[in-house]
């Protein structure tokens, strides 16, 4: 088993499948009256969050607590970071406290890689800048597999702001490893040139959502990062929504069995209409529940055995 989970590229097909299988067992345990397992008793997991997050932090906290690990939550606000403490000094503090795993979210791409060289414990990337978010990709893959029964040969469209999306990058890597065919869809300004060559040569790119939909098993809508709107990647929110938003008319172009995913938080009415988000094809709420199972699997597989 690997020691850190910094990138979806850390996972080969066998390891990724083991995580998904383990997540399936963890999900089965979630239905019990006593959800707590003694597995990670005496281990310490630090949630080191330099960026705001609701679902990822809560999800990691729930996952660690269900496995009986001690959880320390650290957010940059209200800590010594606001006094100017560097990531390295914070890391050395955690090291001195004996953290067995550090779950890190940071606005700088590559922060988990640096952190891994300073601490002895496992480092889990919970989103770094515009780089990667591997546990999101794992829970997405898990959701696809449990809804559609397989990943090999699945056709997946990832739609929207690919340029800034760590979710997209991790998904391309993981899904390709597991045999799915990914098509990136969005305005040309939001799809980096040569992304296929840089990430995974099998990846396709399209600028026309309507022509792609009839062929897809999965459509994953990305959040339009409104905080980046002033950078003029597209003329207006309305135009974006007209060309790349998923509404009922577009959803009907999908094959019968296809599912609609969104990593959250959603801008309802922007990249996805409320009717689509709340439809039976949408897996958005399921994804949150699956997130806890997938993160339990990762924590167990990284921390459960001999260090």
């Amino acid at each position, binding site marked *: *088993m690997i020691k850190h989970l910094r990138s979806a590229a850390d996972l080969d097909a066998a390891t990724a499948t*083991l995580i998904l*299988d*383990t997540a399936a*067992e*963890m999900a*089965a*345990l979630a239905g*019990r*009256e*006593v959800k*707590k*397992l*003694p*597995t990670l008793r005496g281990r310490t997991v630090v949630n080191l969050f330099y960026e705001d997050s609701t679902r990822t932090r809560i999800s990691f906290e729930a996952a660690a607590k269900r*496995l009986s690990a001690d959880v320390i939550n650290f957010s940059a606000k209200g800590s010594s970071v606001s006094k100017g403490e560097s990531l390295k000094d914070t890391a050395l503090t955690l090291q001195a406290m004996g953290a067995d795993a550090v779950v890190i979210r940071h606005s700088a791409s590559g922060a988990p890689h640096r952190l891994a060289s300073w601490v002895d414990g496992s480092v889990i990337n919970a989103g770094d800048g515009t780089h990667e978010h591997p546990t999101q990709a794992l829970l997405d893959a898990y959701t696809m597999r449990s809804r559609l029964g397989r990943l090999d040969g699945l056709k997946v469209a990832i739609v929207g702001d690919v340029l800034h999306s760590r979710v997209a990058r991790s998904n391309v890597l993981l899904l390709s490893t597991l045999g799915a065919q990914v098509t990136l869809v969005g305005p040309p300004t939001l799809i980096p040139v040569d992304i296929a060559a840089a990430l995974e040569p099998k990846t396709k790119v399209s600028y026309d959502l309507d022509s792609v939909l009839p062929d897809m098993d999965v459509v994953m809508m990305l959040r339009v990062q409104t905080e980046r709107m002033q950078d003029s990647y597209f003329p207006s929110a309305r135009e974006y929504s007209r060309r790349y938003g998923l509404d009922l008319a577009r959803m009907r172009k999908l094959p019968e069995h296809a599912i609609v995913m969104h990593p959250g938080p959603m801008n309802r009415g922007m990249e996805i209409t409320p009717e689509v988000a709340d439809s039976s094809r949408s897996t958005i709420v399921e994804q949150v529940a699956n997130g806890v199972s997938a993160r339990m699997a990762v924590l*167990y*597989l*990284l921390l*459960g*055995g*001999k*260090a």
Partner: protein
Amino acid sequence: MASPRADTTSKIILSGSDLHRVVDRIAHQILEKTSGATGTVLLGIPTRGVPLAQRLAARIHAFEDIDVPVGSLDITLYRDDLRLHATRALGKTELPGGGIDGRRVILVDDVLFSGRTVRAALDALNDVGRPSSVQLAVLVDRGHRQLPIRADYVGKNIPTALSESVRVSLTETDGLDEVNLTGAPGGEA
């Protein structure tokens, strides 16, 4: 001193037909001790306890036409030796419909050795329900208990040295039915 593989002694303890007779006997003993297996659930411990539990249920059905619910109980997450080995893959936990509350649970495993697996199984049971009582059925008891645990139904007692190992093969998991004892008695492993 490590001995070459060819020198390792391997002895058949139970042949395929012995094994079938032993399973038949345990099925009869369960029927006898539980007055017809009423309110009883068989839970196999993965990997080989699961097919054994299914076989016991099938034999009980053949003898008395009684359907005993069968399930599986994975104990990996409750093991006390997780930190001594590389991470283990999880097995399946599937409780039969109706659960285990208020029922007599018979845990089924292939080999009873240190007793630590059964200890973990008791902890796991505690988290899935409250059975009225818990019993233990094993195909082979090889001794060397490290905990105060004993089996209610034993297929065969096999005196062993610590250096030896007992290998249970079942058609469902290994392609044939057989129990082997390997390793030199008294020799250093």
